[in-house]
């Protein structure tokens, strides 16, 4: 196990120190937030060559704030803390995030962080699928300053994110969504402590007449190397009144945009079928939440 080969565990107290360490260690450093997936990475041989762990818990990035750009969630905010945030609890547009946070067990919720979860670029996680449906963006800090990365670009591949070697995730921001928006997230799992076989997040925004102005359908789990936005299916919903028929058509269309894998958990055919079924159910649930 490569983890025992790690030589240093740093606990910097500010962003500058983090950047300095990244500069020194480059590719042989791993940023650790909650740390709940480090052993998972090790088990997948993704820690080979890592000499230093850089633990960023003490650099003060632990708030949920309303800003002009939208709702900002710092990297070190744990699932438990995010669950308690007023906006997440109450607003219908955050339904998908609320749903996604219900699935992990208590011990994970207390340790896992938004930053760590997103930076892992693991398609079997739940929060990435949920927040992609809300157009969340990633805030990253590098030596040249901070930058914003949209999620689809951020998730570059299986366990690969778009960060430069000397950058780290400082948080995510949920942009302001249209007034009448609601979202939902559903996960298919074999038992209550599982990675997703398939998961789906649906977000709809409608105008006062009930016509859909924007739709997001995101599918994760074993359907691709990253969560996938089913754009063609979204297009079917947009401009419609979200009738049963339209929702059904969009759910079916999701199937045409995915090329899932078969593994010991499930076959590609099952994942495909479930992506469609869960899409239909998630959209219906989001529609319910609009009321």
């Amino acid at each position, binding site marked *: 196990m490569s983890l025992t080969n790690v030589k*240093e565990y740093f*606990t910097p107290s500010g962003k500058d120190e983090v950047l300095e360490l990244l500069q020194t260690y480059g590719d042989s450093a791993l940023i650790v937030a909650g740390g709940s997936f480090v052993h998972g990475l090790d088990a997948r041989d993704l820690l080979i060559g890592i000499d230093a762990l850089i633990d960023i818990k003490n650099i003060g990035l632990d708030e949920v704030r309303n800003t002009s750009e939208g709702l900002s969630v710092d990297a070190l905010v744990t699932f438990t803390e995010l669950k308690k945030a007023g906006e997440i609890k109450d607003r219908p547009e955050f339904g998908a995030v609320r749903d996604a946070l219900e699935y992990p067990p208590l011990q994970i919720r*207390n340790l896992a962080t938004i930053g760590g979860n997103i930076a892992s670029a693991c398609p079997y996680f739940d929060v990435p699928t949920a927040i992609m449906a809300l157009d969340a963006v990633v805030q990253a800090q590098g030596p040249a300053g901070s930058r914003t990365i949209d999620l689809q670009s951020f998730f570059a591949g299986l366990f690969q994110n778009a960060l430069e070697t000397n950058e780290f995730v400082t948080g995510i921001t949920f942009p302001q969504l249209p007034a009448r928006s609601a979202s939902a997230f559903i996960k298919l799992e074999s038992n209550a402590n599982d990675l997703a076989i398939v998961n789906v997040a649906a977000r709809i925004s409608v105008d006062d007449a009930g016509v859909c102005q924007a739709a997001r359908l995101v599918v994760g789990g074993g359907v691709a190397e990253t969560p996938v936005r089913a754009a063609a299916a979204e297009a079917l919903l947009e401009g419609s009144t979200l009738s049963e028929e339209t929702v059904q058509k969009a759910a079916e269309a999701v199937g045409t945009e995915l090329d899932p894998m078969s593994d010991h958990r499930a076959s590609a055919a099952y994942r495909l079928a479930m992506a469609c079924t869960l899409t239909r159910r998630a959209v219906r649930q989001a529609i319910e939440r609009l009321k």
Partner: protein
Amino acid sequence: MKKLITLEINGELTELSVEPSESLLQVLRRQYGLTGTKRGCDSGGCGCCTVHLDGKAVYSCMVFASSLQNRRVTTIEGLTGDGELDPLQTAFVEKGAVQCGYCTCGIIMTAKEFLSHESDPDEEQIRHAIAGNLCRCTGYHKIVEAIKTAGSGS
């Protein structure tokens, strides 16, 4: 390279020298002989290693000991400061919720945190609260009853 850290374990301040990859679970068992926290899988899948970190239930197998400077750890041995049994412990014994006992302490630690912010929970809430703790002996039935009893203060 080893690090020297200061932390609180079961109410006592202590100094620790740790390797970068050492987990809290390893430290508790090997350096402190606190064997009530147990290894079932070492991968955050079974919950036998559950302890409180600053009052919150976590899998100690995935907490890096190096990250514990100035933090507060509570294990089953420190659940009650005075040697008396916690109502959860009593309930587990009296309801027959203990068979082999290997998962017991992890579940008690989880339930303890859960009950600290959820008074008189119903069965569904309890089952979800312990979803991260596996038991192979009891089928969870009497465990849920015990937590319900302790939670209702009866």
